[in-house]
Structure formats: structure tokens, C-alpha cells
């Protein structure tokens, strides 16, 4: 929407995202978070190509070894390289977090916009949100994963089946807060003059939502997106930690942590590395979310 204004060089209007970036830069924690997150993403995306030991390669002679040149983070009880497992585990952890966040965001935004825009659906959709908020989420997640894992694994394969199940389970149990925030914003936006003007020229509801409402509720959605990733990563790790997540062949960080618990007396470093990686990931995402919230709030940005 701003391409045209950049072409008109005379007045040099600034893209509003530059203002956001300027405010974001002043938040030290958020910058640190960006740096750490970038490092983690680099490790998980590029790392497996630089350190190309197969994480599933079993080398029983080199089992349960401490750090060495051949295995910088040591090996597990079957002689699999921990560094390679950490890299590939991070990939799955982040993939689950991102996909579950997208699912919960799409659901939450859809329900929030529909509830805010169409008054007739507001009551029933908000009651539904309240019902979901009253569910005991962790027991329900455990139940869903435990009971449906086997049949999905049989039909879709061990990795895809568990991935789809966990993403789906996290997605449908975490959309409620997004929906509430979006609904509130849509209710306020609906009373604004530009919506009235646009309605007066006969804009249909579908285009009104896509062109006028949605771009204006982007900032709360973006903030809930960052928090959603952190939440999904924690939930997935918790499920894996309780032994109800991914199978050991596809180790996420939570699974590595729970596998390492058994050998905590012999090889304490086996739990330390996944714990550090997981904490750094969630902490950096939360700091970015904090910075983003400040940067996207025009009341703070002006100062």
C-alpha cells in the first residue's frame, strides 16, 4: 500500500514501518532477542549442512561419551551425535511452534473478526470462546495426543502423524486470546468514520473485512503471533517431556530433555544443552514480542 508514496520522492514521506523499526531498535531486550533467535534459526537451518553427521546414525562403540572433537556435545546411549540431534530437534520444535501459531492465529482472527463484525454471531461465538477458556487445557491435550497418536501414526507415518496431531491439538486450544483481542479491536474500528464512508459507497462485507478491517488489526495479531510461537513451543516441549510427543527418532528439544533425564547422573550435559536451547528460544521470542508490542503501539511510538 505504500509503494506509490515511495515513488513520489518530492515529499519524502516515511513508510510507517520505518517508525516501527526505529521504536523497536530502542528496546535492547528485543534486539538481543532478534540476535539470539537469528542465531538459533541459523543453527537449525544451516547447522545440519555444516555438521553433516546423520542424527539417526547409531554408533554403539561411541555410546554415552562426553564432549570430544568428534562429538562436541557428546553422544547418547546409542552413540548418536548430540549436536546433530540438537540441530534436527530444533528444526522440528520451531516448525511445530510456527505451524501451530499460524493455525491458532487463523482460527482466532477469523472468529474474532466474525464476532466483532457481525453482531448476530457475536453472542454465540463469544460464549464458545468462554467455553474453550474454561477447558482444562493440559489434561485435554495429553488426552488427545495419547488417544489418537497410534491411529494417526499408522495412517500417516510416525513423523507426519505426530506432527499433524500436535499442531492441530495446540492450534485448537490456543486461539481464544487472539479472538478476544481481535474482536475488541474490530468492535472499535467498526464505529470509525472510514468504515462508515466505505459502507456508504456499498462495499460488501467480505471486501470491507479484507481491505479495511484486517489491515487495521494487524498489530495486535502480530504481537499475539510472537507470543503464540512461544506458547506452542512450550506446550509441545511439555508434551514431549511427558513422553507424549514425538518418537525418539524425531527428537524435539523437549524429547531430548526427557530422554536425558534417565541418564542425568552419568551425563548431565545431555539435559543441559536442550534446556539451554529451549530457554533461549522462548526467552528471545518473548523479548521480541515485548519490543514489538511497544513498537506497534502508536501512543508509545510518539514519545
Amino acid at each position: 500500500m505504500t509503494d506509490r508514496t515511495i515513488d513520489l520522492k518530492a515529499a519524502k514521506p516515511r513508510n510507517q514501518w520505518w517508525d516501527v523499526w526505529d521504536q523497536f531498535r530502542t528496546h535492547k531486550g528485543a534486539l538481543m532477542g532478534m540476535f539470539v533467535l537469528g542465531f538459533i534459526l541459523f543453527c537449525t537451518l544451516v547447522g545440519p549442512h555444516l555438521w553433516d553427521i546423520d542424527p539417526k546414525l547409531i554408533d554403539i562403540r561411541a555410546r554415552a561419551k562426553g564432549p570430544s572433537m568428534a562429538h562436541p556435545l557428546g553422544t547418547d546411549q546409542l552413540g548418536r551425535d548430540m549436536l546433530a540431534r540438537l540441530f534436527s530437534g530444533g528444526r522440528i520444535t520451531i516448525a511445530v511452534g510456527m505451524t501451530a501459531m499460524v493455525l491458532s492465529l487463523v482460527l482466532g482472527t477469523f472468529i474474532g473478526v466474525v464476532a466483532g463484525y457481525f453482531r448476530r454471531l457475536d453472542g454465540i461465538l463469544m460464549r464458545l470462546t468462554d467455553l474453550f477458556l474454561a477447558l482444562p487445557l493440559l489434561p485435554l491435550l495429553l488426552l488427545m495426543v495419547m488417544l489418537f497418536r497410534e491411529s494417526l501414526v499408522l495412517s500417516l507415518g510416525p513423523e507426519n502423524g505426530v506432527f499433524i496431531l500436535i499442531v492441530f491439538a495446540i492450534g485448537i486450544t490456543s486461539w481464544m486470546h487472539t479472538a478476544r483481542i481481535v474482536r475488541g479491536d474490530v468492535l472499535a474500528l467498526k464505529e470509525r468514520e472510514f468504515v462508515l464512508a466505505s459502507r456508504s459507497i456499498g462495499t460488501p462485507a467480505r471486501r470491507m473485512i479484507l481491505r479495511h478491517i484486517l489491515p487495521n488489526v494487524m498489530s495486535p495479531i502480530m504481537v499475539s503471533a510472537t507470543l503464540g510461537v512461544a506458547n506452542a513451543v512450550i506446550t509441545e516441549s511439555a508434551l514431549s517431556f511427558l513422553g507424549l510427543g514425538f518418537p525418539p527418532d524425531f527428537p524435539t528439544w523437549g524429547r531430548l530433555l526427557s530422554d536425558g533425564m534417565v541418564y542425568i547422573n552419568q551425563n548431565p550435559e545431555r539435559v543441559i544443552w536442550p534446556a539451554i536451547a529451549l530457554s533461549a528460544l522462548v526467552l528471545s521470542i518473548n523479548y521480541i514480542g515485548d519490543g514489538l508490542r511497544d513498537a506497534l503501539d502508536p501512543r508509545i511510538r510518539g514519545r
Partner: protein
Amino acid sequence: MLTFTIRRLLFAIPTLLFISLVIFLILELAPGDPLADMPMTIPPDVKEKIRLSLGLGRPAYIRYGLWLYNLFVTEPSYWIDSAFHTHLADGAQRIISFQTRAPVFDTIAERIPQTLLVVGMGYLVGTLISLPIGIISAYKQYSWFDQFGTFVSMVGFSVPTFVTGVMLIVIFSVMIPSTSFFWLPSIYDTTLRVTDWNSFVLQFRQMIMPVFVLALYQAAQVSRYMRASMLDNLSMDYVRTARAKGLSERVLLLKHVLRNSLIPVITVIALGVPSIFTGAIITENVFKVNGLGQQLLLSIQGNDAPMVLTISFIFAILIVLFNLIADVLYGILDPRIRYD
């Protein structure tokens, strides 16, 4: 206020029914079999008889109705019987666990004390620590104390309890030799009875780590709210007025600002009470505390439908109840809020 409370209580009934139905249907639709763990040598006709004895022969809606009836009629009458020595229950069928073949509520009653002691203590300690931290952080905004406090609360809020718990175990149970004074047990011993000073010290030592983990998480959340709420109030006009008329900072802070800032924080604390039980699932597993959360996990793994349904339903009741309490408290404490 009263009509609001009554309306909310009435709305809670369909909510709870819906939740129990959701859990029941998930259990029902799942392909799991409660007899999966039985030996293969049991002949099929005997297995069928076992299924019938578990009540699985009846259609789903009858089993759901029976469960509801047992939960709301039979079980309370047993409690009344044991309290007042009446004979209301008259030997009626209670809710029986598939795994232990014992009444579900007997198991729950065995498990609740550990959960309340460990997890409740964590919640209490965390809340008590967080209030002064939030107050000082807000009063001395941007001081080193505030910087440090917000960082620690960010860490405590981001790092999940199973990571902090495991890290503590690595430091205090693995790296420190078990002969040292600072060594702490990583496994909670439920059979320990506190009879004298020595056993009290043992009990105290084994509670340090789980309580610390939960307290850190709780303190991180509440101190963030406390700080934000204090900051909101400190910039209000009445604070300037109070300073202008010469009130001491101590009175100003503790009498005027604190009272007003506590209103939203108290509702947050009330809303968090159900998480004592649900969040306990993870912490109890890290430290092997045999509380309610661990029982729930065991029952889920064993396809023990009545136990899972009942424990989850108790969690749901707690969530709905404390949501209501938070709303009502907010209305009572803040005269500006009117629900009617």
C-alpha cells in the same frame, strides 16, 4: 452483584456439562482399549465378560448419564454417610476406576494432600515474594533492582517449569555430592512422616526444589502484573495530591497506591489458583511427587476413562469456580465496576 453471581452460577452449569461431554466424547471416540494391558492368554469370552463388568456393554449415552448421576448423587451421599453416619448411599455403585477397581474418589483423596502441600506451597510462596518485588520495582522504576527484577521475571515467565526443575536437579542433586550439606533429593518421598525435628528437616529439604520451581514461575507472573498496576497508579492525580498534602512516602505507597493496585492483581491471583492443579502435572512428574497430576497422567496412559473423566472434571470445576470468584472479587473491591 447477587443477581450477577447467580446468573454466572447458572451459566456455569451448561459450561461444565459441555466440558464433561467434550472429555467423555474424546475418550469415547478414541481407539484405545482399557483391556489392552490384560494378558493375551485370557480367552475372548472371558474378556467380553470383563468388558461387561466394567460397564462397557451399555450404549455411550447411558454410561455418560450414569457417570453424571454417580458424580452428583451417589458420591455426595457417600460423603454425607461418612460424615454423619447416615445410610443414604445404601451400598449404591460408586464411580470405579478401570485400573485399580477401587472408587475413583478414594484414589483422589489419597493424592490430593501431596498436591496441595507441594504445589499449594509453591503458589503461596511465589505470590508472597512477588508482591514486594513488584512494589519496589515500580517505585524505583529503571533502577538496577527494577532492571534485575524484570529480567528475572521475564526468565521465570519464559522458561517452562520442566526446564527449571531439570536444571535444579542437575545442579543440586547431580553436581553437588550427596554427602554435602547443599545436596537436595530429586525424588519426593511421600512415605516420609514428620514426627520429629530430623524428619521435618528431611521433609523441608525435599520440598525446596519443587516449591522453588513453582514459586519462581508464579512470582514471575504476579510481579509483572503488580509492577504494571503500581506504575499505572503512581502516575494518577491522587498520588500528587497525597504528596502535596505532605503524606510520608511510606503511607502513600502502602496505604494509597498499594490498595488500589492490588485490585487487578488479586483477580490475577484468584484466576491462577486452578493452575495449582493443572500445572502440577508437569512439576509432579519432574520431582516424582505422587499427587493428582501424576495420577491423571497414569490414568491417561492406562485408558482409565472414569478416573480421567473425574479428575479433568474436577479441574474444570476449579477453573470455572475461580473465574467466577475473580469476577465477583473485582466487583466487590472496585466500586467503579458494576455488573448490574
